[in-house]
């Protein structure tokens, strides 16, 4: 497997993937816990929930996550991008500890260390699985939309 080095811009996109997902999930959780219980027999009651402020903010953050996630998946393997998403939990925990002065238990520090080691492990490896003929296919795929535009 050849080494695929990432540019600073690609690391920035992975950073956005990491940060937007846990922040979005936190907003969704805050919004959903303030709603009355939703039962399986009335699933349509979930639709008005989408328009409440915390859930709307959560969805906006998750849309930003999804755009950067799709971009990352176009130049890196799924098994390379996914550990990066988990690193967001570490950022949120450190943010809570040093900015909000929340206490972090020994268990959580152990979790932070394990995720950091895990992400470091995968980040040092190749970002994309080499496939014979893939390099020849990519420019053709990239050129297709341009050809359509010129018509």
């Amino acid at each position, binding site marked *: *497997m050849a080494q695929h080095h990432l540019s600073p*811009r690609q690391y920035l996109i992975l950073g956005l993937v990491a940060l937007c997902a846990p922040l979005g*999930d*936190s907003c*969704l*959780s805050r919004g*959903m*816990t303030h*709603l009355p*219980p*939703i039962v*399986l027999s009335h*699933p349509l009651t*979930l639709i008005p*929930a989408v328009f409440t402020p915390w859930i709307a903010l959560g969805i906006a953050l*998750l849309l930003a996550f999804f755009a950067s996630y*799709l*971009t990352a*998946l*176009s*130049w890196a*393997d*799924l*098994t*390379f991008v*996914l*550990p990066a998403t*988990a690193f967001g*939990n*570490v950022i949120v*925990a450190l943010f809570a500890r040093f900015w909000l002065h929340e206490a972090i238990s020994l*268990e*959580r520090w*152990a*979790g*932070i*260390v*394990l*995720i950091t*080691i*895990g*992400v470091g*492990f*995968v980040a*040092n*490896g*190749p970002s994309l*699985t*080499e*496939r014979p003929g893939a390099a020849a*296919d*990519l*420019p053709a*795929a*990239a050129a*297709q*939309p*341009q050809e*359509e*535009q010129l018509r």
Partner: protein
Amino acid sequence: MTIPPSLSTVGFWPACAMIAAIILLSTAGEVLTAAAMKSIGDLDDIRAISGMKGAIRAVVTCPLFFAGVSFLALAFFSLLFALNHLNLSLVAPASASLTLVTNAIAGKIFLKENVDRRRWTSAVLVCIGVYLLAH
């Protein structure tokens, strides 16, 4: 087998079913989306050649992308449903950590990714780490 009432308003098996639904639906969605993005090619290259509109068009005209998004949407609504019955400190670590492992397995089987020892180790370390951090 029980779950503390502070974490769940439902029994053990319904809670497991809710978490399993999130894991299976999000794994299917992520694998299909990753397959779609690989079939489209590097979005940065496409944008450099045909601009942002070309990149967006390349994504939204891919049928595999819509299949992936449909599964991710189902996973999202099952997450909302689960959060209404279970505490975030139960749903988040369980679904996030197990999804990493199921995605590594699905990535190897369906996407033919080279999931070497480094990536398996990383998936397991991050899985345990997410569980400890969010538990």
